[in-house]
């Protein structure tokens, strides 16, 4: 095809096309690297982890090296308890604070302060959060405990949930808020029933992602929940088993092959839990999504 005549000097097409190809190539390689890394990690966990997964491994409690019929059942239950407790603490507080920020706190001194603190807290190394809870809870209580682990994880979740809630609520158009008020709803009702409902998918996604993020956290549990070779019946008073600590212990502090293998098995379980949360999030929200 003949190129169109132009009164201005044309830029050579060759370089523009080359640039286009280079940028496309670059973004493709980025995708390949990211996906490749994920496949590699999941693949390793899958191959090494699946070898040790048996019903007994999932159901029996962990035991010191050498005792037969050991498993990671107590760690699975402990992790569920600790992250569940964290969610119970962080979700209501985080959502409420996020609502405050989005609906009442824009431009106020309290709002800006809160937002600043949340940003600082989000950037804080999680081991510091562990130390903080250690000095505020573990030392006064005189013992490690599962609930201290929950508090540490909640401190990590809180700012994330607060900021996602704020962002999601701010995305709801002002006209919807006004329409709700114009019908004669109170401010509270308009926010809870109309604004939050519109932002529901975003809110739930944020909560679930923060949950799956902390369910694999190790550092904050190091000084709080610790670990115990028993069922987590001492959640409120004593060290509580959990998967991340079990992995750390078994793979870094143990010279035994069997322990390393069990560590991989535990890694497989925690990955499966996180994957499960992520996938259910996506499926639920695809179907429940309102509108066209």
């Amino acid at each position: 095809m003949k190129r169109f005549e132009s009164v201005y000097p044309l830029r050579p097409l060759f370089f523009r096309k080359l640039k286009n190809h280079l940028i496309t190539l670059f973004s493709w390689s980025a995708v390949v690297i990211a996906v490749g890394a994920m496949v590699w990690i999941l693949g390793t966990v899958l191959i090494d982890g699946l070898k040790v997964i048996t019903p007994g491994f999932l159901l029996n409690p962990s035991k010191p090296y050498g005792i037969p019929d050991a498993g990671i059942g107590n760690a699975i239950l402990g992790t569920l308890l600790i992250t569940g407790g964290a969610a119970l603490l962080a979700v209501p507080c985080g959502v409420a604070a996020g609502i405050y920020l989005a609906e009442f706190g824009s431009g106020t001194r309290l709002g800006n302060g809160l937002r600043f603190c949340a940003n600082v807290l989000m950037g804080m190394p999680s081991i510091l959060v562990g130390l903080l809870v250690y000095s505020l809870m573990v030392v006064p209580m005189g013992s490690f405990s599962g609930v201290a682990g929950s508090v540490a994880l909640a401190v990590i979740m809180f700012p994330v949930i607060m900021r996602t809630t704020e962002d999601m609520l701010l995305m709801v158009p002002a006209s919807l808020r006004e329409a709700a008020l114009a019908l004669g709803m109170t401010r509270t009702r308009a926010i809870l029933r109309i604004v939050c409902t519109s932002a529901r998918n975003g809110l739930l996604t944020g909560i679930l992602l923060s949950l799956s993020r902390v369910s694999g956290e190790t550092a904050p549990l190091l000084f709080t929940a610790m670990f115990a070779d028993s069922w987590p019946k001492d959640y409120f008073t004593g060290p509580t088993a959990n998967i991340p600590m079990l992995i750390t212990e078994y793979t870094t502090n143990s010279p035994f092959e069997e322990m390393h293998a069990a560590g991989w098995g535990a890694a497989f379980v925690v990955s499966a839990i996180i994957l499960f949360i992520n996938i259910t999030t996506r499926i639920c929200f695809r179907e429940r999504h309102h509108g066209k």
Partner: protein
Amino acid sequence: MANKISARNINFYYGSHQALFDNNLDIAEHAITAVIGPSGCGKSTHLRIYNRIYELYRDQRVTGSLFIDGVDVLNEKVDVLELRRKVGMIFQKPTPFPMSVFDNVAYPLRLHYRLSRSEIADKVEEALRGASLWEEVKDKLKSSGLALSGGQQQRLCIARAIAASPEVLLMDEPTSAIDPVATLKIEELMVELKKRFTIVIVTHNMQQAARISDFTAFFYKGRIVEFGDTEKIFTNPDEKQTEEYITGRFG
């Protein structure tokens, strides 16, 4: 005809920026009053005082009086929820709530009244018929209000507004985001609705104002330049600015 609403010496401020100057306006009952004027002249601002929706924003402030049925509703003592039940509002962009068609219309009913399930169902149907939407949605009352077309969504919002049994309907460019056929439907609907409600409509469409309204107010730079019978405003306005605006010779 009696006046439903009387605005007296209304001044409005966005922070330190004054948007309305000394507005005085009488809105006749069971009539359509059109508010026209160039963009940014304060039409929406004026309308948003009538149901005190501006109160949502901390920096917005009004002075003056707004009498509805003789009561100054800008007085702090007037209950704003009660006011908003009496004064419904339709926005430029349709604002269906994220719930089913039925629930959208039932919402104000449940909000303001104590009704049984069957009474609610009846009133929802009545409101949807009132907004001439019933035939189109009667088979999909359970599907999301967001899944309707733009014109249907706007009529859904009208149905939702009239379900609360208001006395006044405020409409801020209700048809500007909607195609001509749906617009005609909504215009016919408004002429029908004025038997039951007092309607104030902001519009940029001169033909629309001329077609459906009984009275017209022309706003310019935050002031009400001229107000009177629509026929007079459109055929023989007193003010030069009004004439230039409606004939499109505005400079």
